[in-house]
């Protein structure tokens, strides 16, 4: 099981690979759409990559609730618990 910091760091790497955004820009309070300008297609790619990396399931209907990076990190942490 990964810590919140580890999940954030891992997620930032996935976001960087998909969008080219600096890993330092991927912070807990950032909105995927408003702040990071991530479209729905990139978001789905990030979700699938995160499922692989953290060995969790993120149901499609849950994705719309993951508005901020923190939402995603917390969801993954809870799913791993």
């Amino acid at each position: 099981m990964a810590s919140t910091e580890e999940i954030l760091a891992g997620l930032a790497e996935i976001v960087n690979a998909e969008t080219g955004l600096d890993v330092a820009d991927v912070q807990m309070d950032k909105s995927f759409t408003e702040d990071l300008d991530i479209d729905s297609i990139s978001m789905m790619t990030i979700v699938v990559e995160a499922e692989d990396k953290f060995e969790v399931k993120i149901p499609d209907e849950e994705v719309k609730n993951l508005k901020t990076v923190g939402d995603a990190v917390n969801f993954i942490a809870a799913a791993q618990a």
Partner: protein
Amino acid sequence: MMARKVVITGLGATTPIGGDVPTLWENALKGVSGAATLTDSWVEEYHLPVTFAARASVPATDVLSRVEAKRMDPSTQFAVVAAREAWKDSGIEEIDRNKLAVAFATGIGGVWTLLDAWDTLREKGPRRVLPMTVPMLMPNGPAAAVSLDLGAAAGAHTPVSACASGTEAMHVGMELIRAGKADVVVVGGAEAAIHPMPIAAFSSMQALSRSNDNPQGASRPYDIDRNGFVMGEGAGALVLEAEEHALARGARIYAELAGTSVTADAYHITAPDPQGLGATRALKAAMFDGLIQPEDVVHVNAHATSTPVGDKPEYSALKAALGDHLDNVWVSATKSQMGHLLGASGAVESVLTTLAIYHRLAPVTINLDNQDPDIPLKVVTGEPAKLPAEGSIVALNNSFGFGGHNAVVAIRSV
């Protein structure tokens, strides 16, 4: 009312013999081969009967950013690389986006993406099929990506006519400008099909050369020993512009796109009409469209793929369209150098034809050791041929595709 005159003001290309237009032109005059043995593991894995091809000399992933490339099929990557070069070359800085259109062709489209996604589905299940799969595999992907990249809002078109596609894009661009629907159209063609499945499929229909022991000598249009085409990849792009628009901004004009035409053989799904009747009609129609007499024509960039059955009917068509004057016309078969870029070939060859008119110099044909006596064309070999230094000159570029598609463009000096 006279039709609007259309001129060519920008050129771009990424090909097996040059990753940009200056390199392509330099090599086309020199006479080099872009073909080489494929080192990919899948060649042996699938026991492919053909083990070589002409890859783009500069991978698109060396030019585009990692994130850009990741969201594009290789065919679209090539299209964007070529279109950006053509756009920069045109020097256009500002334009009404509603008067800028795109006509970007492909023969096959996103075949890598389609087959990779199928592999992923079978190996890992539906959830792992990338969400970008559909926009990456669709054949209008190159046109859409170029439109997005340049902000072209007057329309993005995708002519698909197999190996005539790139030249048909020139025709579409011409029509859009003449109809007043656009002032500038970025036209082109892109292909990235050096994948085991298309190689197997083209091999099955006996279309590819199997000179595995001599890749650089395999593409030999008009030679008595020609035995099929060599698969190439890449893209070509041209900026077509209404003459008054180009003059108003003081643009460098390479040449006039004087005439274009498209016909269909309606004869056979793959075999060309043995007498080249459809190609003859296309040649005559393009010349009529550009008010061109046979005597005006000094150069032809031929389709000439190096297949036993394809090269001869094109000769018959040229003879029918140009008559005895054909003996004076310099013919270049540039597929001898870069292989057959399928849906991109007509665009890259239009770039070469434009440069031939602009520099008054025709590129060379390589590997022509024993010219087929049934094809007595005046072929440029060894050294580039000097075209008449004075006066108005015209060159033709032919492209033909499976399905009986014939496309011809006529390019005139300005």
